[in-house]
Structure formats: structure tokens, C-alpha cells
């Protein structure tokens, strides 16, 4: 069965969601077994990632590095595994999972199969403030970059949604998001061009952000994103009931005692809590949030948000880990930014997927 076939469009959502809530047990066994497989693949990928690099470490070296109380003096593999590869794997997994969850939150709450932080202009909104922070730090009130990215990314996303009238028409959202992204990117570029000679370093740090890379990730970065992640993930799962209600349509949802608009705003903010801190740390990562929920719906054969959220998080994590492994390892000893690889790996897959969806959502 193709992905598109297993992917009921908006009109069919009511039936499927109802069916899923009537017969949850059978469905859970399917979801959980798929999830178990994905977790195993993820674990294997993570271990592989810890061993590979310049120089490669053996499995036993990795094992020792992980369980030794403190890194042994002079043992390179200890330092590499503990200080370089492990935080990077952890951030890749967390970022991918967050993107997967945020994709489900946005798509289900807006009832728009094309909702995605990249397409909503969130990344470029964050990019503008990062440009300002990099080049004119004294003009920006002193808050952590993650907080600024949250504020500006959310503002850009909200603007696109508001402009396209609550995102009902998927094509219009994509076009509005594309043009808002172009505008924000142009403004960021204008900021860059205004930099004086002494501020050239800021230009480089802005473009290091723009390319989307996990190369600079260390334990500090883990510390920066962890609070957001810890808050966001449980809340996302707590929102799954609301998501299921919103899938039924606004009237049905308000009949069940939900305030659709308020719920939508809360869910969107939640998606931003999940996505924007990672944008701040590793830069814009495209299409993972668009792609993971659709694959997840195809695999679970349901649109029940509880199921979709679980798998989408795992698939997002897997995709980003693969992209980052490719970025880190394919061209050793140099490194290609992961951002390029997510565009190259996920982009075409998302295109095929969306092309199938497109027949349904196109005006």
C-alpha cells in the first residue's frame, strides 16, 4: 500500500480518527512493534556514529569511554567519544524528534498536510534575529539566542498563518510562507551587508548558522536545548487528545467542549517550543518536520495523533541522525554541513510524498 493510500486527506479524517479511537488496542500493537524496530535501528545508528570518525574507535573503546568515570588521560577515543561524538548524537536525536513532533502538531492543528516550520518561515524569522545578534549584538536586548529564536520564529510563523487566513488552503500557505521567507532572508542579507569591516566576524557566524550544521555541537549545546526539550515533549503527547478533536473539524471540536482557536494557538506555540531552540543551536533544518508525520501516518495506518506522534518523533530522529552521519563521515576528513544533507536526502522524499498529496490538496 502506498503512503498516499494510507494517508486519508482532510475529508476522510473524521472516519479514520473515530475508528482509531474505537479500536485502539490492535492499533497500538502495530504502532509499538514498528516503534520497537525504529528504536533498534536508531540504537544501531547511534553506536555506529560513536565508533566512526577520524580516527575510528572500536566498539570496546566506545564502551570503555562511555562507562569510565572520567576520561583517561591521553586516550583519544575517550575524548572523541565523550566530548565530540556523544553530544552530537544526542542533539541530532533530540532535534529530529522535536521536528517530528512539531510537524504533527502543526499539520493536525492547522489541518494542513503541508504545515512545516521551514515552509512557515520560522527558520528565516529566527535567521533575521541571529543576523542581528551576530553583527549588532549591542542593539539586541540581552536574552539567550534560543529565546530570541523562539520569539522571532514564532512571530514569522504566526504572520504566515494569519496572512493566509489560518492556513486553510495549503497551497496558499506554502506560497505565503515562501514569500515571507524571501523577505526575511533579504532583510537578513541587508543586515549582513551593512556590517562594517570590524564586524566581519559576525558575518561568518551568521552564515555558520545559516548552513545548518551540527559540527559545533558540544555538551553546552545539549544543556541549552535540554530544558525546552524536556518541557516540550510531554506537552506534545499531552496535546494528542486535542489534536484528535481538531481533526474532526472546528464545529465538532467545539461541540466536544474545545475552543478551537485557543487550542490551535497553544499547539502552535508548543510546536515552536520544540523547534526554535534547535534552530538556534544547529540552524535551519528543512523538511524533516514535513516528512516525518506523513511517513508515520503511512506506517501506523491511522491519523490518531497518539500513534502518529510516537512514530513521527522516532522517524524524525532517525532521519536527522542519518543526515548528520552522512554529513560527518562521507567526505572525511572534511565535513559537509548537515543542512545540505537534509535538503538533499529529505527534500526529494518530501517532494514525492507531497506530489501525491498535492493531487488532493491542490485547488
Amino acid at each position, binding site marked *: 500500500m502506498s503512503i498516499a493510500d494510507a494517508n486519508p486527506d482532510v475529508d476522510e479524517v473524521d472516519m479514520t480518527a473515530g475508528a482509531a479511537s474505537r479500536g485502539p488496542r490492535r492499533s497500538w500493537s502495530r504502532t509499538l512493534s514498528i516503534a520497537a524496530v525504529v528504536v533498534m535501528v536508531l540504537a544501531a545508528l547511534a553506536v555506529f556514529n560513536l565508533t566512526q570518525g577520524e580516527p575510528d574507535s572500536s566498539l570496546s573503546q566506545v564502551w570503555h569511554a562511555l562507562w569510565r568515570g572520567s576520561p583517561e588521560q591521553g586516550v583519544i577515543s575517550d575524548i572523541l567519544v565523550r566530548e565530540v561524538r556523544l553530544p552530537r548524537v544526542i542533539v541530532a536525536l533530540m532535534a529530529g524528534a522535536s521536528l517530528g513532533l512539531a510537524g504533527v502538531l502543526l499539520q493536525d492543528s492547522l489541518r494542513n498536510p*503541508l504545515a512545516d516550520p*521551514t*515552509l512557515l518561515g520560522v527558520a528565516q524569522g529566527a535567521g533575521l534575529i541571529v543576523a542581528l545578534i551576530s553583527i*549588532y549584538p549591542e*542593539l539586541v536586548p540581552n536574552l539567550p539566542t534560543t529565546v530570541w529564536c523562539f520569539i522571532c520564529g514564532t512571530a514569522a510563523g504566526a504572520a504566515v498563518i494569519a*496572512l*493566509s487566513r489560518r492556513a486553510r488552503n*495549503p*497551497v*496558499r500557505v*506554502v*506560497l*505565503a*510562507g*515562501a*514569500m515571507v*521567507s*524571501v*523577505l526575511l*532572508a*533579504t*532583510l537578513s*542579507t*541587508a543586515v*549582513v*551587508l*551593512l*556590517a*562594517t*569591516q570590524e*564586524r*566581519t566576524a559576525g*558575518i*561568518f557566524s551568521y*552564515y*555558520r548558522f*545559516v*548552513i*545548518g550544521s551540527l559540527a559545533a555541537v558540544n555538551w553546552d549545546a545539549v544543556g541549552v536545548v535540554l530544558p525546552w526539550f524536556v518541557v516540550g515533549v510531554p506537552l506534545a503527547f499531552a496535546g494528542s487528545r486535542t489534536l484528535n478533536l481538531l481533526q474532526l473539524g472546528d464545529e465538532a471540536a467545539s461541540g466536544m467542549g474545545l475552543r478551537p482557536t485557543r487550542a490551535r494557538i497553544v499547539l502552535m506555540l508548543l510546536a515552536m517550543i520544540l523547534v526554535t531552540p534547535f534552530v538556534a543551536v544547529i540552524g*535551519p533544518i*528543512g*523538511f524533516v518536520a514535513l516528512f516525518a508525520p506523513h511517513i508515520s501516518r503511512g506506517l501506523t495506518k491511522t491519523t490518531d495523533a497518539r500513534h502518529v506522534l510516537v512514530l513521527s518523533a522516532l522517524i524524525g530522529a532517525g532521519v536527522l541522525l542519518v543526515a548528520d552521519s552522512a554529513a560527518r563521515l562521507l567526505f572525511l576528513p572534511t565535513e559537509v*554541513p548537515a*543542512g*545540505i544533507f537534509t*535538503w*538533499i536526502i529529505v*527534500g*526529494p522524499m*518530501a*517532494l*514525492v510524498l*507531497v*506530489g*501525491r498529496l*498535492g*493531487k488532493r*490538496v*491542490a*485547488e
Partner: protein
Amino acid sequence: MTTTALPADPRGRRTWALVALLAVGCVVAFVVSVWWGTGSIRISPVKAFESWTDPDNASRLAQVAVEARSARAVMAMAVGAALAIAGSFLQLLYRNPLASPEITGVTQGSVVAVVVYLAYGSTSTDEAIWFLPLIGCAGGLGAGLLTWAIARLGGRVDPLRMILIGVLLGGLLFSVVGIAILTTDEFSQDLIQWTVGSIQVATWDRVWILLGALAIAAPLVLYAVPLANGLGLGDDIAQGVGLGVNTARAIVLLAAATVTAAAVSLVGGIGFVGLVAPHLVRSRTGSDLRRLLPASALAGALLVAAADFAARNVRPGDIADFFGVGADVAPTTLPTGVYLALIGAPFFVHMLRRLP
């Protein structure tokens, strides 16, 4: 907005009045561009005219200034007209008022090609003048072809997929620019300027290259006009009147891509013109391309000329001085693309709000 265009439309006279008005506007814009051009000297139209008709008596400075400024003005207008034509085609082709040349991937492909070349390939300074535009054109048309091939996967060209490819290439573009800037040995602002589009580099040689490319594309554009009009009626009617829908679509797309590539390969990734210009005139001309095309081309020319006027004369450093932070801002002007985005964005918001 309706896309049905009947041949016997009472809008004809209003259109030609509008076209005449816009043409006068373009002439005025040209004169103003020469008058208040780059640099501080003012050259009145009389003096400019003298430097043409009587080159022996005119001062060398004035001659040089007039030549450079007129090249820049013509370049701005030609680019604007080309992008507006592409936008008019695409909005009809997709029956979507928000379509623009950017969604075909041509703009981004061209910019990526040029940026990569500037960062890594450009070794000699005395290469042929047409070499960079050629690379830009090849990159743009290549990306456009790729977009079309992928969008066609399902059998018929799917606008949504094209839009997503445009977005995808846009993201890729930004990554590539970032990598180029971080890894190139000779960092220069030119690379960054190219991503938003800059008309600073206009010389008459380059203007002739652009005009030549547009002249070559002209028959294709003219051939595509009736096809696009037919497609605008809807696939069923188009098929009914004997139009091969897929072929027609490919030809219209090729026409739009060619003029876009020609413009973008000379000035960089200028946006918003193709989106906004057709909307400025459509309420008067209707959607029939025979009337829309000339009017929107002139509107696009005027739009870019206006943006370029701002680009030449607004010094962000002076504005920053006003707020007392002048020392922190580079004493340069911003490229034209920035002002086009600033002019285009409010129009775009207005347009979105007016859609049903």
C-alpha cells in the same frame, strides 16, 4: 480575480491608456535616473542631451556619468520588464495569483551557479564579459528543467510540487552561499549582494547582453502568449479548443524560465517583481496576456527603476547617523533587491488579504 478572458473585452482602451501612462513613467524614470544617478553630480536632462548630441563640447566627467547612469537605468528597467513578463505567464499558467518566477527554481538555480563560480571557479580577471551571465543562465535553465522534470513525475505538471522545489532550492541556495562564504579564500560582499540582486554592476556591455538574450527569447514569448491564454481558460476548455495541454504548459514555462534566467543571470536573485507587477495593472487590463503583458512589463520596469532609485540614493549610514549609531554601519548603499523586497512586501500582504 477571474481568469476567463473574452476576446471582445471593453477593457482595450483603458489598457492602452494605462500602457501610455506607464511608458511616460518609464521615460521620466530614465531621465530621473540620469539626473540623480550614482555619485553626487547632478546632470540635468539638457546637459545629458548635450553630451550625446555634442560629445566634443561636453565635459568628460559628464559623459562618463551619463553613460554609466543610463546603462544602469536601462538595465533596471529591462530586468523589471523581463521578470514581470515571467510573473504574468506563471500566474496564468498556475491559475494562482501568488505564483512568481521564484517558484520555478530558475532564480535560485542561477544564483547558486553564479555564487559557486564566483567563490571557487573564477580565477582570471580578464575573462569574457558574457561568461558569468552564461553560467547564470545555464544554472537557471538547468534548475528550471529539473524542477519541471520532477514536477511532471505524476504525469501532469503539478504547481504545488514546483513551489516546493523552489522552496527547496531556495534553502539549498542559502546553504551553498553560506558554505561558499565560509570556505572561499577571497571573501567579498559581491557574493552576498548577488543573492538579493544588485544593479550596481550595470555597464552597457552587460545591458546589450541582456537585451540580446531577451530579443532571442522574444519569439518564444510571443508564441507562448496565445497558449497561456488558452491554458488560463482551464484544462478542459483548453483541451476542447484543441490545445495539447502538456505541450502548451511546457512552452509557456520555458518562455517564463528563459526571460527569468536572462534577467537573473545579469543582476542576481531579484525577487517580488514578478509577483507584484502583474497585480498592479491587472484590475485595469484583465487577465488576457495580450493586454496584461505590455502593461505589466512596463509596471515591472517602473518598479525596479523606483527601487534602484532608492538603492542609489538612500545611504543607510546617514539614517544610522541620525540615530547616533552611524559609525557602526558600513558607508555603502544596499543592493536594489533589498528595496524591492521592502516595496513588494506591503503589496504582497495587501494581495493576500484581498484573496477570497
